[in-house]
């Protein structure tokens, strides 16, 4: 144990000291150059290491994954587009794509809509109450996907007759209303929606916090002018607030959307992709690690990459536009 501790300390000293030395040394070297050359070179010297790391840890694996998606299950021989053909001709692959599309439509829209509603309504509360209400809604953000899934297993839990009392919250309520208990996670296709609810629960808080701050930063004069002109709260929201925060709404929407494309934990923990709930990211993990089919796993990864790309670009464009406006 002490040996390991020593290793950690040495690693820290060598690492941190090494970085400092590297930058210090590089800076001195640059300083020796003529002023004009030094000015031109200095940014590259400082950004260079980061660029190098980015290339090694991000660009290279991405290219490698794309290459791998054209190889066989062991990642050796070339198979052309076979992996992609398989995905689109396989019933399960198509189902995964359909479900993923449903996820990226439903989850971001509902998370943002609910978050926005909370943000607007909380704005009308007193300062203390608002902070308390927002904290409660933001709280789930702190829970991991797996943790949240385990929590929701207790909500959706189901026991058929003979297997004891219902322990699931939802079934307890459902039974209290005089219905028979339901195996929620088996009821296709609605079980997809039940899984999406978990994600919405997690990300509503995120949407709310960001949108709330956007609303708060709206110039008071505009709102006051609208009030003076006799606008109702409803009109104010649709005609003034929403248009003015629309770029923030888009950023939040696309951010959640990108996360939704990539989420696999919820499906993996709750149903393992059975009962018609499989999604692209879950197929990727299962094909790659469980089925050991490297080519098809990589092909699913590339699909995800391609699906996320336009939203990523959109997000960056929006962000830039916003920066320029300031």
């Amino acid at each position, binding site marked *: 144990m002490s040996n*390991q501790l020593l*290793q*950690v300390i*040495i*690693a*820290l000293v*060598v*690492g*941190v000291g*090494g*970085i400092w030395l*590297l930058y210090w040394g590089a800076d001195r070297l640059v300083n020796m150059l003529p002023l004009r050359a030094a000015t031109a070179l200095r940014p590259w010297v400082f950004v260079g*290491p980061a660029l*190098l*790391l980015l290339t*090694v840890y991000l660009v290279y694996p991405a290219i490698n994954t794309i290459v791998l998606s054209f190889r066989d*299950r062991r990642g050796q021989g070339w198979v052309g587009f076979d992996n992609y053909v398989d995905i689109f001709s396989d*019933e399960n692959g198509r189902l995964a794509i359909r479900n993923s599309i449903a996820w990226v439509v439903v989850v971001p829209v509902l998370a943002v809509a609910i978050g926005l509603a909370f943000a607007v309504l909380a704005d009308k509360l007193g300062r203390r109450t608002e902070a308390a209400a927002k904290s409660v809604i933001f709280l789930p953000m702190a829970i991991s996907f*797996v943790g949240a899934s*385990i929590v929701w297993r207790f909500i959706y839990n*189901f*026991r*058929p*007759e*003979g*297997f*004891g009392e219902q322990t699931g919250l939802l079934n307890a309520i459902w039974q209290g209303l005089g219905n028979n208990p339901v*195996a929620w*996670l*088996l009821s296709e296709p609605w079980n997809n929606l039940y899984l999406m609810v978990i994600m919405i629960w997690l990300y509503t808080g995120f949407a709310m916090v960001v949108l709330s701050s956007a609303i708060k930063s709206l110039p008071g004069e505009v709102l006051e002018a609208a009030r003076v002109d006799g606008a109702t709260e409803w009109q104010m929201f649709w005609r003034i607030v929403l248009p003015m925060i629309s770029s923030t709404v888009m950023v939040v929407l696309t951010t959640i959307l990108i996360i939704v494309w990539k989420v696999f934990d919820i499906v*993996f*923990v*709750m*149903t*393992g*992709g*059975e*009962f018609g709930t499989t999604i692209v990211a879950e197929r990727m*993990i*299962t*094909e790659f*690690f*469980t*089925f*050991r*089919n490297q080519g098809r796993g990589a092909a699913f990864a590339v699909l995800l990459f391609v699906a996320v790309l336009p939203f990523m670009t959109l997000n960056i464009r929006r962000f830039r536009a916003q920066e320029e406006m300031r």
Partner: protein
Amino acid sequence: MSTATRSRTARPPRRAIRRGAALFAALALFAAACSSDGDDGAEPAGGGGGTSGEGSGSEGTTDMSGADFSLFGAPTGVEGEAMQGFLSVYNDETGANIVYEGSDSFEEQLRIRVDGGNSPSVAFTPQPASICDFANAGQLASLEDMGFDIPTMEENHGKFWMDLGVCADGNHYGIPWFPNYKSIVWYRTSLFEDRGYEIPETYDDLVALSQQMVADGVTPWCFGFGSEAASGWPATDWVEDIVVRSAGTDVYTQWFRHEIPFNDPQIADAVNRFGEIFFGDGFVLGGTENVAAIDFREAPLPLFNEEGGCAMHKQGSFIANFFPPGEEDEVSFFDFPSIDGNNAAMGGGDTLMVFDATPEAVQAVKDWITPDWECVLASPSGGSASELGGHGVEGVERLPGHKDVPLDCYESETARNQAEAVRDAIADNTFVFDASDLMPPAVGQGTFWTAMLDWSRGAQTDQVLTSVESSWPQP
């Protein structure tokens, strides 16, 4: 597969911390090519130290004080504690410092760790099919290189089990450790006694008994196919137990090796025979459509209900660990009945793999599979046979993977009976493994499970078997 279930485990292994530090240093120094290829293992461990090969029961001559490595496996909870208990006895006895790490998502985690160059020294897997994936990639040390005596091992642990670890180069890579016995039907003893039901000898008797029970107002069966990401496997056990009896061991072997198609009529027959029980009118507690939602760990619990429960439940020996504590005596078990006069023993088992063949690791593995150490692993006290005691965790007993483990290692009558059946089967080499563990993972851990879940919820036999056949990976 047996108890392998998946969710996350959070405990960071010590090695990971050490590697984390190394990685940090590498990052900090911009040593871009920081990834080492991990422990390629497979150095022939010359001084394996075993005296007369394995099976001698000797502690060996290797100095174990340098044995500082981790053993990685699937058992968690009480089963994991039993592994830790076993290792602490071993560490105390030999001066080794071996740590056990259990993970609920063992299969994924092991692959992630090995691919990430962070493989454990020794691991034991419930999926023998995965052994050759690692071996063919050069990540495992072969038994030949480590100095194991193969013919002796085949005699002691069964040739069938040893053959499962033979990979592309013809060498052995799997070391049989402890089995599960799955050809078991648990039943509520008092119910059978009160109503005078007889233990069925044949499958037809079993169907007839179930009908009799329904007529008497008793629900015969409890089923539960739920197991998170591994849902469906309990159903495959039924099919396998029927195939090995109705079609014979040869067809069973051809089936998992895909020498006959998955939708062969003999397999379809077996599934339909399972249907005689599964879809029998009033046979299944809670209704067949809900079976997929019942967790396999909760499935046997209604056996212990005085009223409104069920009478029988088929599941491997390990399920006794999930029985309500103190009530284990309310149930007993009978062997899965014969079909057309054929009997067989189907099970699973944990097979050791050595990733990093240090002399200490090899010696430890050789020790663990001896009758003496299997006796320590067998029960909390090691029974009257163990001189070294047991693993110390109440309620956990492990069956013998060596034909000479004394029956006196066991505390409970149940475990002793199963141990006898398994030990005899190993000695006769009639102990076969769960076929779904032996199929390619895309089938055995994928479409076969899905097929049985769909089937349990009303899909046609031919349809689900054809979908499995079409999913069988091309060689």
